[in-house]
């Protein structure tokens, strides 16, 4: 029911591994999967459409096509684009040169405004500011009591003249109150539907009365497709400066973050992610992108591979592959490249789908086996490594003795090398079955 994108792309990736290079059709298939993943993460379908169109262009570009790991590269492009889209502008608050800095909080009912007010106050207090809370939600029963109680817990002043006072007046007087008692005024407003003209009009009047330095829209991370409608309406009517994403401690993918960012053009500044008042922090676009895509370590793996695989060596290897001149030296190189990335079992664990893959799950990835292959090849003369066909019986005995192993082990290695060479030939002719790493059991 809840497959991650990584799991789903695994199917495509494993097929792609066969032909190495991506065709336009492969990219289209991958894009379809990514589209579904984004929709399941609640990104608005129009936003998805635009996003996919944009990413497709990049995915068909050289950076992916010429990559060593094209399939993973597609995912990386998607991830990077997501992160860039969500975090391209500054997420800090605007502070007034002449205090108090005024922050107006707005949002639908139940998005978590009152709690977010208290959490923001806690956050700012820790930062050395002196926040003051203003209770302008006169509609929800006991909303004022709630803010007053929370202000007590945060230990900040609160302005709460009561539910029978006009909210515009509460805001205006509250800012004056805040100027005497602190340096940041946080105004809590009633939750309202974006299509409620009367209440939206009231919000505009509050804004005009206090001229806030920051108007923040509070959005529930679990919001579905409708997030765009609400956010767009708030943007048009009160001109937002940023967004606070709440309830991120749940398991919602949080696609609303992308939707809201796309329609408002305003940054997500904070996330609220826990029951405690201190569970509030700056927004991290990277983490959000991974969360929306439902993937964990794939990127770490790609970055590792990018950092460790020497591009020149890779190019030389490709040349050899094409000529089908795959020597034992090349095998040794390949082995070293793989090992540079870290313990094999760790690398395999990072691959999407692999931990649960049939067969491989039980196969013991024996690091020692890699040591043995390395020892065997290192016990050969350069001539033998280049031309394995000259390795006769007595040479085999010498290599076995030199590496501390048996003649059968030498035979096994040579056989494996011959098979790999065969694979290389098939590869250069365009058809290649799965290529295993040498020395991998199972």
């Amino acid at each position, binding site marked *: 029911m*809840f497959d991650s994108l990584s799991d789903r792309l695994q199917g495509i990736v494993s097929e792609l591994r066969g032909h190495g290079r991506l065709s336009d059709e492969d990219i289209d298939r991958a894009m379809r999967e990514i589209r579904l993943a984004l929709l399941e993460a609640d990104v608005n*379908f129009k936003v998805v459409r635009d996003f996919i169109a944009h990413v497709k262009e990049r995915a068909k570009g050289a950076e992916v096509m010429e990559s060593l790991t094209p399939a993973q590269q597609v995912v990386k492009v998607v991830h990077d684009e997501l992160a860039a889209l969500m975090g391209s502008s500054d997420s800090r608050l605007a502070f007034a040169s002449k205090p108090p800095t005024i922050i107006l909080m707005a949002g639908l009912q139940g*998005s978590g405004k009152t709690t977010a007010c208290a959490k923001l106050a806690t956050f700012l207090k820790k930062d050395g500011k002196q926040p003051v809370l203003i209770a302008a939600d006169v509609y*929800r029963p006991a909303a004022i*009591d709630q803010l007053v*109680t929370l202000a007590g817990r945060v230990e900040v002043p609160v302005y709460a003249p009561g539910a029978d006072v006009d909210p515009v007046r509460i805001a205006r007087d509250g800012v004056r109150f805040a100027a005497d008692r602190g340096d940041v005024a946080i105004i809590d407003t009633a939750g309202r539907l974006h299509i409620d003209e009367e209440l939206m009009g009231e919000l505009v009047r509050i804004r005009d009365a206090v001229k806030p330095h920051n108007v923040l829209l509070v959005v529930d991370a*679990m919001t579905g497709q*409708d997030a765009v409608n609400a956010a767009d309406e708030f943007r048009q009517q009160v001109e937002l400066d940023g967004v606070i994403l709440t309830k991120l401690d749940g*398991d919602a993918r949080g696609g609303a973050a992308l939707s809201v960012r796309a329609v408002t053009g305003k940054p997500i500044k904070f996330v609220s992610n826990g029951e405690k008042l201190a569970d509030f922090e700056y927004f991290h676009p990277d983490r959000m992108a991974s969360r929306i895509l439902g993937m964990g370590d794939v990127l770490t793996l790609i970055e590792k591979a990018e950092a460790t695989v020497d591009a020149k060596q890779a190019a030389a290897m490709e040349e050899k592959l094409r000529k089908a001149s795959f020597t034992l030296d090349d095998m040794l190189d390949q082995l070293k490249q793989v090992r540079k990335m870290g313990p094999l079992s760790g690398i395999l664990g990072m691959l999407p789908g692999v931990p649960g893959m049939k067969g491989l799950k039980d196969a013991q990835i024996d690091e020692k086996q890699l040591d043995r292959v390395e020892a065997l090849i290192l016990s050969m003369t350069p001539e033998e490594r280049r031309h394995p066909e000259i390795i006769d019986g007595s040479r085999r005995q010498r290599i076995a003795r030199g590496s501390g192993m048996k003649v059968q082990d030498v035979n096994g290695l040579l056989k494996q090398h011959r098979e790999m060479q065969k694979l290389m030939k098939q590869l250069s002719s365009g058809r290649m079955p799965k290529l295993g790493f040498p020395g991998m059991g199972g």
Partner: protein
Amino acid sequence: MEWYEVFRGIEGEVPAAVVEEEKAERAGLLGRLRRNLGKASGALRGALTTIVLGAAGEDVWEQVEEALIAADVGVDATLEIVDRLEVRAASRGLRTQEDLIAELATAVADELRVDDPDARRIDVTAHPAIILVVGVNGTGKTTTIGKLAWRLTQMGRRPLMVAADTFRAAAAEQLTEWAGRVGCDIVRQASGGDPAAVVYDGLAAAASRGADVVIIDTAGRLHTQVNLMKELEKVRRVIERQVPGAPHETLLVLDATTGQNGLRQAHEFQRAVQVSGVVLTKLDGTAKGGIVVAIHKDLGIPVKLIGVGEQLDDLRPFDPDEFTRALFAVDG
């Protein structure tokens, strides 16, 4: 469905005038729902016109797909519904745009139907009948309880509210205000107490105060918070021990703006406290609440009530055809 049909245990007690009033009320509501929900359906009509004109093809079904996705129906349920609709459209030779949209509405409504009409009703046959109300933060549990209690008093019952949300600041005050508006009793304790203890007191008070329905408000909690879900399980166990056969209803309050995570919420609450029905709130906005399709389909939990506004009478019985006709702006 009308209100006088909603409660199991209050049959035949409603005068004809009330029935008439209900019908008028519903007509007004349908209009309102349609105005809001139908806004996004314009594009769909355009798409379906193309089908009818014969320039059909994959594109058009893709747009039907998008209409469903836009309603938060979710990818899996959407694909299934579209598949079925394609077959139906072909076999019945549907020609007009109206036919197709009506068929779409029916296909979605089919996903929300129950075999046994009682499965959609709220069981208040027991005296006292215990209704446990649960959900994540901010879905409108307290408001729903206010409206439900008001409706029960209108129908001659004596509800008692139990404020077992001892976590959120001023939650008990909020419920107390509702109790005042409705004119019913409430049991509460100081904030920060053990919700199971409040529930225990509430159930004991029901007998002494002559209440015949007990509605229990619980703190909003994310379904991923293990300790809070355990706390809720404990509340249910306390109820079970104290009143055999209770709770008679466990209602999950779900915000219509919720996306695909709603299915997870329902799943986890179902596992913890065996949900008997969903109350879909905030349908007076532009959100469509399509996730209830997946919740009904995958977990078999029916929608029982919908919330369409902030007034006392803005809680309504759920009817799948009414709901989907409003969703896709079908006339009649």
